[in-house]
């Protein structure tokens, strides 16, 4: 079955958990970047966004930003959600990272070592770009399947509510998205 047909079948039959799971799996495997309606980023900006997202939420014992598809989500939001005016701090911030990296290390931000990238990005903490970009990366991560399941105990059918549970029994917060 083609992906489109899978999606159609999944959307038509909201009754079955199995079908919903299929829909989810299809989307998780889908390249959300391909869904961008008004693309404007160039290849260099895309690479910078990926590097920066992974710097903020790196792969550790749990999936990192790239594993969770965060760069594609950031591109979607910048392209199709925010207006050119609203996204300007990010566009400018990415250019500023390059300028700072070239001055300090003689290369663009994305081509720097992890330590060099860390130093350049850390210098922006407290500024508009840092807050905006980090918020977007976190949002993309905690609303992705790998990210949410890494941070929380994801459930959509719990069957009960318990208002007083020792954290020792529930070390990760229960989340429903």
């Amino acid at each position, binding site marked *: 079955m083609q992906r489109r047909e899978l999606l159609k079948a999944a959307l038509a039959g909201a009754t079955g958990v199995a079908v*919903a799971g299929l829909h989810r799996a299809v989307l998780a495997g889908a390249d959300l970047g391909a869904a961008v309606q008004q693309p404007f980023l160039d290849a260099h900006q895309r690479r910078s966004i990926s590097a920066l997202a992974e710097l903020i939420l790196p792969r550790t014992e749990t999936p990192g930003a790239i594993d969770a598809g965060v760069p594609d989500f950031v591109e*979607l939001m910048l392209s199709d*959600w925010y207006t050119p005016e609203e996204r300007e701090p990010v566009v400018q911030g990415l250019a500023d990272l390059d300028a700072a990296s070239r001055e300090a290390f003689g290369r663009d931000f994305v081509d720097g070592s992890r330590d060099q990238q860390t130093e350049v990005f850390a210098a922006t903490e407290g500024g508009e770009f840092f807050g905006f970009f980090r918020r977007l990366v*976190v949002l993309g991560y905690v609303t992705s*399947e790998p990210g949410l399941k890494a941070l929380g105990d994801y459930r*959509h059918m*719990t*069957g009960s509510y318990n208002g007083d549970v020792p*954290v020792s029994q529930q070390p990760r*917060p229960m989340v429903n998205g």
Partner: protein
Amino acid sequence: MNAQFDAIVIGSGITGGWAARELTRRGLKTLVLERGRRIEHITDYQGEHKAPWDYPFRGRVPRELAERDYFIQSQFGWFDAYGLQYWNNDRLNPYVQDPEKPFHWVHTDVLAGRSMVWGRQCYRWSDLDFEANKRDGHGIDWPIRYADIAPWYDHVEQVVGVSGEKLGLSQLPDGLFQKPMELNVVEKHVQSTLRDQFPDRQLTVGRVAILTEPKDDRAACHYCGPCHRGCSTKSYFSALTVTLPQAEATGRLELRTDAVVEGLDVDASGTRVTGVRVIDAKDGSRTRYEAKVVFLCASTIGSTQILMNSAGENHPNGLANGSGVLGRYMMDHTFGTGITGLVHGFEDRTTTGFRPNGIYVPRFRNLEGQDEDADFVRGYGFQGGAGRMGFTDAAERLPGFGPDFKKALGGHGPWSMRFFGFGEILPHPDNTMSLDPVLKDRFGIPQVRFDTQYRDNEKRMIADMMKQGEAMLKAAGATGISSGPGQMIMGRGVHEMGTARMGHDPSESVLNGWNQAHEVPNLFVTDGACMTSGSCVNPSITYMALTARAANHAADLLAEGKI
């Protein structure tokens, strides 16, 4: 009279479903007209149990679409991609408002209406409410008291299924409840704080139209959380899953969706509705239906719009509007006032499951006459609850980035406790809706225009909410307490009420004590339009009780040949 139907019910939501259920069960052949599209149980719950990653914008409605088609609805908290199919399209169905005095008309455009997405909180009125207008002189006296409606609360609660705790309070009568949902550990802490330090106040879990025990063909809540996406186990009450199917089971229900009511026809004497004029929303074709009795259950604004657009020779200012009060005394509940703080000492405790309900602090102001320190009349209640803060909040608080930042994101956040005030808005003659003299909608029906605002009593009440809410959180040991009055926009409470009020005297009211139009005895209005005052509690269960009471009265009158 040789009518096609015994009864026509206009609207299929919280009240229309009840009118249909009662009328059909009394043996009446009933037509329900719904202007929205037909939806089906389960099939149309596209977002139920979906995850954020199932949507490109992770559960948000694409911004361009929201700004173009849902510019009013999208400002409401529960508007999201999971339940987009229910909401009214603001571009296709415009209304007129003064930007200086905005009114937010939050509503759906589907079968079963807002019963699909309602907050489900169910609180009985008491005589403190029914006598309020008479006592302080705002508005006119209600033609009924608690004793008139109490048996009908029993009647509807037994069908709806309301879970909650009995408190024995005179200002908030107990109902027929299933077992209450559970308070969490911090809510219990605040509850005991109030018990010790504010003996006039109580904190209980919300009384809510969600099953905690199985009932009929409906299962107890499975605690997935977001009811407003639809519930395949029918655990929350909606017209789609309870009242309309029960009406259908009688074999006497006919249902027409995409049926926009343009107006009502009356006979030559002007004292009897003879027909309902309908425009098909899909193809524009026109039909006229006849019945012996007509129930307007089209929502406060929808019903009054229909009455206004039914003006004619005998009713120059709108049908049943000899009093001139039709469209006046629009009310809502104050909404958006929030008080929040961080509660400490429970860092080793958390919750499991997603309780689709919060806490309730029943009204404690101006109960025995006017409180000495209150510079406002009437009162308010608090909803809200406690919970541990989530990942996105943590991201705002935590410094840095990288592995340590990522690790810290995943922990349990601090406990926060929130109160949200819901206050009574006084009936004021100059809070109005009317028909625009020029602008028409896509069906050629005059657009509704609003002229409403919060006034001094509401603003003083909101200031008191913040003061009292902060004091309670402080007593519970909370830190970082903050509060805000909210936007104070009429309609945002989504409890719009009034504009066709009940009363004893036909010269100052539209409806009598049975929700029956004084001037047109075979016409009943049983949705929020009928309200003479607003109380501070969520109104739906009262609308349901009034509707069931009126429908059975109408059936009695028909049987006796009186209408």
